[in-house]
């Protein structure tokens, strides 16, 4: 089981001070969080990709390359990489390059992106979102597995005798998660390839994601990649902690009330009741997170959102300290208990290289 953090990279005014960080400050804050993530023993840092204000992370592999040079163990990932508006050839090259620089500590999560104007800005049409995700990933998958590619499709210029360089490290492409908030087609895509499925699990009630994850597990088994329990599931979550529950609620409330996503809507209490948002003492966070396993089955990766809605870096780093000291050790111990033997761990490059060797020997 892997634990980590993911960030959207929004530049948002701190509602308690009225101060808005500069883009430079926000970018540096994101990298500081990543370095801190490794210090406190987390396994994964993932950044979003956006091409519109108020978000800064337009160039994830540049950022992750910087973090790779300053960390030793941390897996660098995305949440999400836009499979619809990026050229799949460039994704293949960028992430293979990052994989070499980071000695394999790289995977990525693909998503479609839901900001209408981004599609036309990159020459695409949002109504083709699903077909773009299907075709572009089929090409990306091929580019990482076949040395010479001849290819023609609907959305991109054809390729003749093309080799994507560098080749994936040790001949093993980065592990891919497919992220989706509402589309069963994407759960089906993840299952077809035997890739991971990530449910962002933040803004919507759990019943919604139970249906999608249930579908993914069922189709994963259908395509012969393993049992339903062996499918690779990742979940998001969102937390804010203080020693005392009341202090956490009091401090987080102004951020919640003004948050770009749900501000002006339900109360913090209603939202906590209906979604996986956890605000409270470390013990409450632990209990709510452990309940994810009851809802979705044993899973492989848990990412937390800790830094949006204008929370200042100082507060975010304090959150990570509490996470590392009081929450993470308990979660690791509890998630390990009664975990069936056949349930895989979170994906790592080393494990995937070993698996490939085993398969080659068997053949």
């Amino acid at each position: 089981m892997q634990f980590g953090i993911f960030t959207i990279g929004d530049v948002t005014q701190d509602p308690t001070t009225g101060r808005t960080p500069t883009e430079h400050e926000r970018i540096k804050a994101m990298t500081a969080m990543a370095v801190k993530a490794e210090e406190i023993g987390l396994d994964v840092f993932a950044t979003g990709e956006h091409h519109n204000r108020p978000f800064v992370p337009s160039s994830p592999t540049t950022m992750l390359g910087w973090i790779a040079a300053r960390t030793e163990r941390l897996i660098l990932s995305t949440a999400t990489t836009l499979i619809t508006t990026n050229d799949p050839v460039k994704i293949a090259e960028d992430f293979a390059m990052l994989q070499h620089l980071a000695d394999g500590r790289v995977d990525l999560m693909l998503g479609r992106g839901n900001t209408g104007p981004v599609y036309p800005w990159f020459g695409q049409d949002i109504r083709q979102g699903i077909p773009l995700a299907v075709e572009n990933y089929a090409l990306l998958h091929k580019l990482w597995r076949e040395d010479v590619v001849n290819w023609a499709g609907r959305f991109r210029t054809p390729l003749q005798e093309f080799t994507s360089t560098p080749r994936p490290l040790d001949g093993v492409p980065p592990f891919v998660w497919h992220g989706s908030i509402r589309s069963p087609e994407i759960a089906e895509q993840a299952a077809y390839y035997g890739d991971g499925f990530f449910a962002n699990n933040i803004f919507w009630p759990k019943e919604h994601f139970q249906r999608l994850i249930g579908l993914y597990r069922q189709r994963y088994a259908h395509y012969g990649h393993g049992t339903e329990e062996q499918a690779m599931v990742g979940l998001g979550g969102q937390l804010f902690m203080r020693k005392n529950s009341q202090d956490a609620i009091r401090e987080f409330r102004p951020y919640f009330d003004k948050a770009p996503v749900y501000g002006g809507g339900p109360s913090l209490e209603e939202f906590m009741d209906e979604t996986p948002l956890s605000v409270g003492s470390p013990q409450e966070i632990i209990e709510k997170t452990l309940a994810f396993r009851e809802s979705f089955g044993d899973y492989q990766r848990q990412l937390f959102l800790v830094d949006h809605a204008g929370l200042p870096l100082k507060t975010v780093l304090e959150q990570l300290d509490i996470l590392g000291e009081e929450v993470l050790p308990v979660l690791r111990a509890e998630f390990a208990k009664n975990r069936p033997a056949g349930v895989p761990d979170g994906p790592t490059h080393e494990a995937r290289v070993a698996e490939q060797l085993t398969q080659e020997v068997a053949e």
Partner: protein
Amino acid sequence: MSALKLAVVSAGLSTPSATRLLADRLAEATRARLAGDGREVTVEVVELRELAVPIANNLVTGFPGKELARAVETVTGADALIAVTPVFSASYSGLFKSFFDVLSAGESTALAGKPVIVGATGGTARHSLVLEHAMRPLFAYLRAVVLPTAVYAAAEDWGGTGDALTDTLPARIERAGGELAALLSARPAPVPATDDVPVVPFEQQLAALRPRQEVQRAP
């Protein structure tokens, strides 16, 4: 034969409400006609006033709370719908429109093919074309089957005589209920809904994108 499910959406705000009164009369007219044909009907009423805050929250968060999700299921899972709104500023009320906005936001075909009686209430009969100029286009856009008779009740209509020789409120209610009952009677018994998420097999998704010459080469 299993009972038909009739959902009634009322956007009336006062208690008692003329809008609810009209909605109930339409439901009863439909039920009575179907009973005459030997079809049983269960009626479930959704009062939007009680869902005003959850509807506003859904607009902001993008998902329905538990209570609202139940109301949406009541409507989308019904065999037919009776939808009645008070007239506000020459149209349906904002609450009424917001309910159908959130209902169709996730699934644009949520009401496709569903028979609907539209109704409206107002202080005077001068607003009655709201039915034809606002309600009917809204449900036509959602691809519902809007019945020919739409029923408007002005304050004065509640004192009407019910004389069948003039097209009074009771006559219009009877006609609308009769149209809905006739449509439902002609339809085959409903298939029970499943909770499965529909999925297009991935090979099919891929095949739809293959360039033409490659498709022709395939055996």
